[in-house]
């Protein structure tokens, strides 16, 4: 009998891996009454699930339809913005939406940001005079991705703090939408304000193009043709939001594990070429996204169980990434692991659009921190995890340097 544990309990927020292993071994497609969802934990099943046509990513349309009965509420407007997010769309719409970033957000384009990224990292680390202590999340892992995504899109530096706070405010709406569609007035308001802000920014770059992603996409001519202006704005709110927290958690979780495993940290310091494989291994070992949520749009036999239309599925990336059927010594952190077909960034049509940027940020930021601060160590304080099913993120990570 497998216990039906709460994925947001303090124990499982702290360490979900033992439970995921139990599920994977004993009931790899397990119905959780508590979460009203199928928990899928084997690599083979998760990697098929993320591209299965019966498993829909569209969790928003039913909410938009329900909200349609309500008078011009902020809730309805907010849901309409969310309905444009790529992560909530299925093919073929998903492909049409994502297509506008085809040329503007590729590994080659992103690699040109290497210099600017290094500068931003130096700027954040420069003021740190040892000895001292800091909250690595607040002082480094959070501001870095925020500044980078802002600069990439063309948000002026002076406005970065504003949309950092919008992004924070929006979070409960997104994770709420995943859980029970709670109404968070503040979050709705923040999303609408962010959309208005981006509308103005798009107008500005339409008139006076500059060297940034918004201008480049506009120049390519798809906005107004294959996608509407509203869809474009919606996707931009998504990019800003997605660029924040996930990369923050990659950096913070990553630095933490290296500090916990000094041998691996030493390898990275001695052999700089490992900075290219380390981010993927950290994504596999303890990445920012624990799972992906899907809905069944029809009955389907899956991994030996019969799943019914309307039911919810949690494709547990963090469990698949520790599956011994796919990875040798899955519970060992090996920053040189290659090839590393982990699912930490998803797989298939929805594969993380920002993957090249996340990898580049991890590749530069993580080694920079440990090289610049040779006495870096974890402070003995209790860890406080974000109480979320989807994300694996620390609220704070206190270190001495």
């Amino acid at each position, binding site marked *: 009998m497998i216990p039906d544990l709460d994925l947001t309990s303090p124990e499982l927020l702290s360490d979900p891996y033992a439970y995921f292993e139990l599920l994977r071994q004993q009931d790899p497609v397990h119905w959780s009454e508590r979460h009203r969802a199928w928990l899928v934990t084997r690599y083979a099943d998760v*990697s098929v699930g993320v591209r299965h046509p019966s498993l829909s990513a569209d969790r928003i349309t039913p909410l938009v339809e329900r909200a349609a009965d309500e008078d011009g509420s902020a809730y309805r407007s907010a849901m309409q913005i969310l309905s444009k997010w790529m992560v909530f769309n299925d093919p073929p719409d998903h492909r049409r939406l*994502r297509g506008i970033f*085809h040329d503007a957000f590729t*590994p080659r384009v992103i690699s040109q940001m290497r210099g600017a990224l290094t500068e931003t990292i130096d700027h954040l680390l420069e003021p740190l005079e040892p000895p001292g202590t800091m909250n690595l999340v607040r002082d480094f892992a959070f501001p870095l991705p925020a500044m980078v995504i802002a600069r990439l899109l063309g948000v002026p530096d002076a406005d970065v703090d504003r949309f950092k706070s919008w992004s924070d405010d929006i979070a409960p709406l997104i994770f709420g939408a995943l859980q029970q569609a709670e109404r968070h007035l503040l979050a709705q308001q923040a999303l609408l304000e962010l959309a208005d802000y981006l509308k103005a920014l798009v107008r500005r770059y339409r008139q006076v193009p500059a060297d940034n992603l918004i201008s480049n996409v506009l120049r390519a001519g798809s906005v107004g043709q294959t996608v509407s202006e509203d869809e474009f704005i919606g996707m931009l709110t998504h990019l800003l939001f997605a660029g924040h927290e996930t990369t923050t958690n990659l950096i913070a979780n990553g630095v933490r594990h290296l500090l916990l495993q000094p041998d691996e940290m030493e390898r990275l310091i001695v052999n700089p070429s490992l900075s290219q494989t380390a981010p993927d291994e950290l994504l596999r070992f303890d990445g920012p996204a624990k799972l992906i949520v899907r809905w069944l749009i029809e009955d389907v036999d899956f991994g030996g169980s019969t799943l019914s239309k309307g039911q919810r599925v949690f494709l547990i990336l963090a469990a698949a990434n520790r599956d011994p059927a796919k990875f040798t010594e899955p519970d060992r952190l090996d920053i040189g692991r290659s*090839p590393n077909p*982990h699912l930490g960034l998803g*797989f*298939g*049509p929805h*594969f993380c659009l920002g993957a090249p940027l996340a990898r580049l940020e991890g590749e530069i930021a993580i080694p920079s921190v440990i090289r610049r601060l040779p006495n870096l160590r974890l402070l003995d304080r209790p860890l406080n995890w974000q109480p979320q099913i989807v994300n694996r993120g620390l609220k704070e990570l206190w270190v001495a340097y």
Partner: protein
Amino acid sequence: MPIDSLRVDRSKCVGFGNCVRVAPQTFRLDEEGFSTVVDPVGDSEDAIEDAIEGCPSSAIEGTTP
């Protein structure tokens, strides 16, 4: 039986490299960062099928038997 006429459409490939991760003996990223087929039977049929279906930009063409 090998997957027929396996090829990467360079106009669609953006260079995410997922194919190289799941079928490393079959695909490689070239100097420009695009995927290219180095050995159409380099990996198991399942792995190559994963690469085809796992490509975020649907750039890999090939008929599975």
